[in-house]
């Protein structure tokens, strides 16, 4: 069996558990939609403002919604010490990180698939002309957010204040993702020249590579007793 097959089985387990309970997806989706609606009432953006405000509304909503899912993702493993059982498996513990990273990423992407059209409808912004580039930036930003968040979720799962600790740890470190994600989204929707958008995109790529690799490598020490 290859490491990829092991990750696939880990992902299968997470998805079956989530599809049965829908705890994470339901909480993330409802929260994201509520924040989007609140933003709309709070700002009541004019058509001209919408383009300027939507990227910030989108990324702030995703950041908050992601912490809801991330904080729950290792709770399943904490019950009955299943994380310890995973550490007993004859695999590099980094694969546990990889499996969790993928399931968390899928949850966030699913929320984005619902949130983005909803926000666009609320703000009256047409997304289709920028569709491909926007999806690319969202994917890059989501990878970074989830890469850091999965690691901190594992770190905070055994603490009593994990719901507080996770955002406190996550947001400062993930701020390059939020800033560059917002800027790139703004550039894409505003029709900026690619030369102005690409530096932010490059930063997102670098962030993703660094934190996915760091997460994989240090996970063993994060979950060690």
């Amino acid at each position, binding site marked *: 069996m290859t490491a990829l097959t092991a990750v696939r089985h880990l992902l299968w387990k997470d998805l079956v558990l989530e599809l049965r309970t829908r705890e994470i997806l339901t909480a993330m989706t409802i929260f994201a939609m509520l924040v989007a609606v609140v933003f709309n009432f709070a700002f009541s953006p004019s058509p001209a403002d919408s383009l300027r405000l939507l990227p910030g509304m989108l990324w702030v909503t995703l950041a908050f919604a992601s912490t809801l899912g991330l904080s729950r993702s290792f709770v399943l493993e904490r019950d009955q*010490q299943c994380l*310890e059982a995973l550490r007993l*498996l*004859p695999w590099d513990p980094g694969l546990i990180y990889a499996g969790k990273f993928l399931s968390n990423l899928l949850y966030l992407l699913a929320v984005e698939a619902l949130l983005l059209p909803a926000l666009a409808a609320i703000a009256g912004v047409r997304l289709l002309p920028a569709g491909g580039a926007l999806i690319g930036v969202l994917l890059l930003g989501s990878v970074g957010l989830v890469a850091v968040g999965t690691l901190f979720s594992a770190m905070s799962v055994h603490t009593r204040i994990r719901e507080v600790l996770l955002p406190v740890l996550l947001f400062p470190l993930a701020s390059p993702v939020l800033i560059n994600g917002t800027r790139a989204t703004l550039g894409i929707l505003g029709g900026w020249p690619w030369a102005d958008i690409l530096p932010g995109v490059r930063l997102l790529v670098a962030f993703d590579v660094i934190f996915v690799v760091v997460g994989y490598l240090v996970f063993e020490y994060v979950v060690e007793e």
Partner: protein
Amino acid sequence: MHSAHGRGSVQALALQEITKCFGPVQALRGVSLTVGDGEALAVFGPNGAGKTTLLKIAATLMRPTSGTVRILGADPSHQAPQLRRLIGLVSHQSYLYAGLTGFENLLFTARMYGVPDARARAHALLETVGLSHRGGDLVRTYSRGMTQRLSIARALVHDPRILLLDEPFTGLDRQAAMAFRDLLLAMRGTRAIILTTHSIEQGVAVSDRVAILVDGAVAYEAENGARDVGTVERVYAQCVGVPA
């Protein structure tokens, strides 16, 4: 005090001078124990004696503060993933996902260990522990005893060469305890077993050797050829300092 060591020609597990500290608390103090291939060792001791810590170190889940661990002669700090394949552990916690069925739990574990024909293995183990009729039910609907039986099946799914059992009789009713005891007796000689339990009767019945752990140190270790429960109970009482 007697001193005996793993009688199998190969030492499945060798713990030498193991100490483990949690801050100022010393959970293990220079514990040395060996278990031969095919040998069963029962470890008794009061709560807080260090039995669980000892098993976690043996299972490579925890690093000792000092001392050496050897699994079939190999150092787990260098080859942990490969050596973990040889170990099965039944812990205080079930290691089971409440949101998966009994069958799915075993299937997932079997797949993660790369067991050939994982489905057949999961079905066979459900049969072995008497849960085939409930294999399709979510684990959260299981009783404590059923969960414990499934947990035992989970530890056996990859046919480990070293089986570590942390109070496995807990939660089992008399019938299930007898069935598990028979299962352990059937496995004797085929793999190394370390069993911690408060039940001296059960531990003596299934082991080749017994050890008593008190305050993180081995207070007694002896062969168990005669299966003499009374003697072990008397020695235990002396070691722990309570009337027999």
